């Protein structure tokens, strides 16, 4: 039977991988980015900027440890300021990586194969950035281990009825599973890197990480089993982590927080911002490193569609919140709605509606979905919008609660801003290193997309 070198694709859709590639060209193309490509001036300059931002984060945190959380804008009534906004924002961004790697794996979506590696890396770095905030928000981060149930001299458990403790478990489990999933997926690629590296030290490091991978049938069998099991383990986490994060709010009685729609609405929002971050990174990376063959318009368009779908769920959430403000007849709920639209933060609420709901509707049009420029702009807009969403949920709900006498305003300080931009620096520093140290596209999984990798036994029997 003649081998079809073209990958069969549906009409009018870009292919998952451009034609003409073989096992060898894939391995060369991806590993050469790490092993052969010289370090460019642009990379060094970008790294310098991001590394400086990360050091600004360390400076801001150092001053925080010295002075305490009083340097931030938080006070009563708004006790949860930037720290919690940024925590939820970063955790949400992480979700796309797990969705792509786990759920799309179980659903056998082959287009995930070329973006799952850096989406998972993005997840890990985003969760690491997210983890900084609740840690420093405790005020005494050196006692943060008190949140874990361990046999302590106080003979006391943490308060298991508090959703903040559920958060500790949800986020730490999430990070662990994501890390293991990422590492297991990397093992065959580490072996490729080991085999292609020339410097003995590089070869040794990749060799240790490859854990003696030979690519034997038994290795592949076990690898596939482990990968599938991990995908199964990670799948509920996509839903559970942000559900638990939403409980931080929904369990309380604050108007604007105390709603049952929070878990699905938070999960959708998380995937929304996560895919925005994937696009935000994938579009420049594929252009700079010439990966258009592997990350095709198909991937970008699909990500745009996911954004459109999850964005509509988020819009539904906003709609229900507004509807319940009116329908409940509760004066505090209707006050919240009024306050969002006409209160001191109304500009930001309207900006939220524009960035999160109105502008992304452009994705209905194929012209915008298939334009890298517009996709990149829209994904940046969505990232801003999802940040504003958390700002509105936290600050606007808290600043005017049941008693007029306890109303107040929240103004972030320069330390808030330094910490926030600092984590962006930390995230991008990690990304900068990642693209130069690890194969940012999965070599082994790309190879499975080639026709040569498919078994045609049954058809041969028919002949």
């Amino acid at each position, binding site marked *: 039977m003649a081998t079809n070198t073209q990958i069969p694709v549906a009409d009018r859709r870009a292919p998952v991988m451009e034609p003409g590639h073989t096992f060898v060209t894939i391995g060369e193309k991806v590993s050469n980015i790490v092993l052969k490509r010289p370090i460019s001036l642009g990379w060094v300059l970008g790294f310098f900027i991001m590394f400086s931002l990360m050091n600004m984060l360390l400076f801001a945190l150092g001053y925080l440890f010295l002075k305490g959380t009083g340097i931030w804008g938080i006070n009563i009534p708004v006790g949860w300021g930037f720290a919690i906004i940024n925590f939820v924002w970063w955790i949400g961004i992480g979700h796309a990586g797990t969705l792509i790697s786990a759920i799309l794996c179980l659903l056998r979506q082959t287009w995930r194969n070329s973006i799952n590696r850096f989406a998972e890396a993005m997840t890990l770095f985003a969760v690491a950035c997210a983890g900084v905030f609740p840690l420093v928000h405790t005020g005494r981060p050196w006692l943060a281990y008190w949140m874990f149930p361990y046999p*302590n*001299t*106080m*003979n006391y458990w943490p308060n298991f009825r508090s959703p903040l403790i559920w958060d500790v478990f949800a986020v730490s489990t999430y990070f662990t599973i994501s890390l293991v999933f990422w590492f297991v997926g990397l093992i065959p690629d580490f072996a490729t890197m*080991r085999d292609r590296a020339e410097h003995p030290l590089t*070869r*040794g490091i990749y060799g240790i990480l490859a*854990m003696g991978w030979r690519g034997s049938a038994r290795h592949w069998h076990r690898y596939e089993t482990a990968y599938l099991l991990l995908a199964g383990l990670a799948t509920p986490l996509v839903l559970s982590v942000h559900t638990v994060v939403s409980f931080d709010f929904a369990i309380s009685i604050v108007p604007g927080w105390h709603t049952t729609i929070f878990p699905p609405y938070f999960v959708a929002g998380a995937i929304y911002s996560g895919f925005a971050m994937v696009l935000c990174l994938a579009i420049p990376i594929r252009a700079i490193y010439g990966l258009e063959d592997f990350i095709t318009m198909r991937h970008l368009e699909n990500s745009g569609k996911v954004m459109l779908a999850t964005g509509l769920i988020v819009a539904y959430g906003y709609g229900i919140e507004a509807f319940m403000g009116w329908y409940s007849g509760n004066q505090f709920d209707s006050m919240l709605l009024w306050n969002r639209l006409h209160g001191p933060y109304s500009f930001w609420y309207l900006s939220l509606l524009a960035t999160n709901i109105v502008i992304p509707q452009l994705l209905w049009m194929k012209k915008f979905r298939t334009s890298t420029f517009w996709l990149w702009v829209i994904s940046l807009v969505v990232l801003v919008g999802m940040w504003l969403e958390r700002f509105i949920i936290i600050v606007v709900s808290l600043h005017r609660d049941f008693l007029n006498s306890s109303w107040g305003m929240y103004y972030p300080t320069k330390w808030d801003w330094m910490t926030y931009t600092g984590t962006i620096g930390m995230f991008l520093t990690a990304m900068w290193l990642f693209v130069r140290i690890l194969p940012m596209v999965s070599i082994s999984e790309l190879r499975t997309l080639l026709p040569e990798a498919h078994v045609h036994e049954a058809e041969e029997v028919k002949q």
Partner: protein
Amino acid sequence: MQIFPRSSNAIARASLFGAVFAVAGLFWVVAQLQRSPYITYAGVRKSQPVPFSHQHHVTGLGIDCRYCHTSVEQSSFAGIPPTKTCMNCHAQIWTNAAYLEPVRESFRSGRSIEWTRVNQLPNFVYFNHSIHVNKGVGCNTCHGPVDQMPLTYQYASLQMEFCLDCHRAPEKYLRPREQVFNMRYEPPSTGEPVVVDGIAYAEQGKLGEALKKQYKVRSAREITDCNTCHR
């Protein structure tokens, strides 16, 4: 292309198991260290300006705790005796002993003797001696065999788990009020029952329950509230 010999598989396997034991061992060491006298100072004899012996004064001479610690039944603080209390006797006996010179000097000048504190709770803990003494908690339940201490030392760890051990089940330790200051009190046994109001108790559990009721000790739920001690 393998770059490591086959034998490195053994190292990889060993490191997997080793990591588990190393982490578990580290946790164990930290947990033990945190409860050791290095952190708690339990059992550590501290030097004092005068080598005062509780053993001599309590066991040898039979002086009651309250002769010196006068406020223990009415106040949160048991009370450190003024030099005058020492001089009640030492104006008459051992008047020339060299190591009592700081006591006489204190009496002459009116400046207190600066004892080194032995039992110290952190400032965020509210502790009241009188409530414990009046509800039937013996001195040596927390302070240990003071009557056998030539130089006083802290007996218990005074960590929160030590306090909660009793607050969660006070019946394990309660004794009749009149036995609170008896340093040689023994919990009831079948051979030597403790008699309260004409009823002989052969088990601490039963005695404790009865005393809890009689002394109106509040429920474990109430006395383990955070603000019972952290006010």
